[in-house]
């Protein structure tokens, strides 16, 4: 088996966001109160779905996180904000999984949003907030305390090194998106990279 890097539903790892070039359910879609409903300009998403590139096919709900303030998020349908450090792994928007043959450690792991053409260019018309979530158990989490607006190479989310050797590594990422202008925003995508031996 070769090295495999996957984008998965954090609460249901069997549900995969397919490769970008597949043409299938390859997109994380941010919506208003339900699938297919727009997010108001200047407001953050209320629901998140796996969908197709045009946002028209419902491939199942992903856990929704809504940006509440610099250190807080609305989890699922809740209207009461939680601290990011209290958000559980399975409540994150995205699970990124690396599987390798050898038992490896990882370092310099980064996640960015971009305009679908150049990984260095920020997406236009949207603000994307991201935070690493690390809370596998009831203990207070150890991920990011604050959201970071990720924009191409100008602002990249650095994820925790996982130096303990393992054949599988998971990262959990919270995402929330806000349109800054009217109209569907399809020209943004996510890029992830990690180093190992």
């Amino acid at each position, binding site marked *: 088996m070769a090295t495999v890097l*996957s984008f998965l539903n954090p609460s249901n790892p069997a549900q995969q*966001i397919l490769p970008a070039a597949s043409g299938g359910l390859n997109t994380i879609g941010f919506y208003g109160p339900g699938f297919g409903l727009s997010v108001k300009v200047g407001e953050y998403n209320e629901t998140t779905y796996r969908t197709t590139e045009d946002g028209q096919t419902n491939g199942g709900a992903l856990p929704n996180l809504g940006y509440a303030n610099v250190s807080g998020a609305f989890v699922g349908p809740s209207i009461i904000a939680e601290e990011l450090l209290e958000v559980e792994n399975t409540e994150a928007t995205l699970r990124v999984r*690396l599987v390798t*043959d050898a038992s*490896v450690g990882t370092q310099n792991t980064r996640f960015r949003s971009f305009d679908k053409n150049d990984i260095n260019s920020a997406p236009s018309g949207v603000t994307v907030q991201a935070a690493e979530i690390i809370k596998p158990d009831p203990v207070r989490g150890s991920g990011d305390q604050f959201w970071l607006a990720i924009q191409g190479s100008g602002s990249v989310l650095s994820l925790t090194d996982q130096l303990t*050797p393992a054949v599988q590594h998971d990262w959990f990422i919270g995402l929330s998106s806000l349109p800054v202008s009217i109209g569907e925003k399809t020209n943004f995508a996510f*890029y992830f990279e990690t180093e*190992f*031996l």
Partner: protein
Amino acid sequence: MDYGLSKKVDETVPVVRWIASLSNGETIYENVIKDEIPAWERLSKYVEDHDISITNLRLQIAGTEVKLPAGQQGYIQKKVAWTVGGTINGLRLCIGYVQNGLALIYEVDENRGSRTQRTVDPGEPWTIYHADIRRANANSI
């Protein structure tokens, strides 16, 4: 102690691989042993235990070879998995060396065959330094 290192091409040695020449005259080929730590970590332990150094490092990929200059202060090897969306979209294979406080890294994309080189801070935890430098560092602690 068995380090599980391959001194010739065998069934554990992948087609795309690094090859290290050692100061004791041995040549080590990257191998993959399921659930075992990476060959680079095993090599690091081996050179430390035997007080020897890497004298040269090569990367073989898709019929081409990237060869680093011999006799450097340290050598680096790592891989960068990257994806847009899900499932692996690419793997960059990187080898490099440390000299005079800088590390020069060569990256080769496994799928695209493209090559880049960049200079980075040598603060790489996975660098295997020359035995003289390891000894000097150990004495300074």
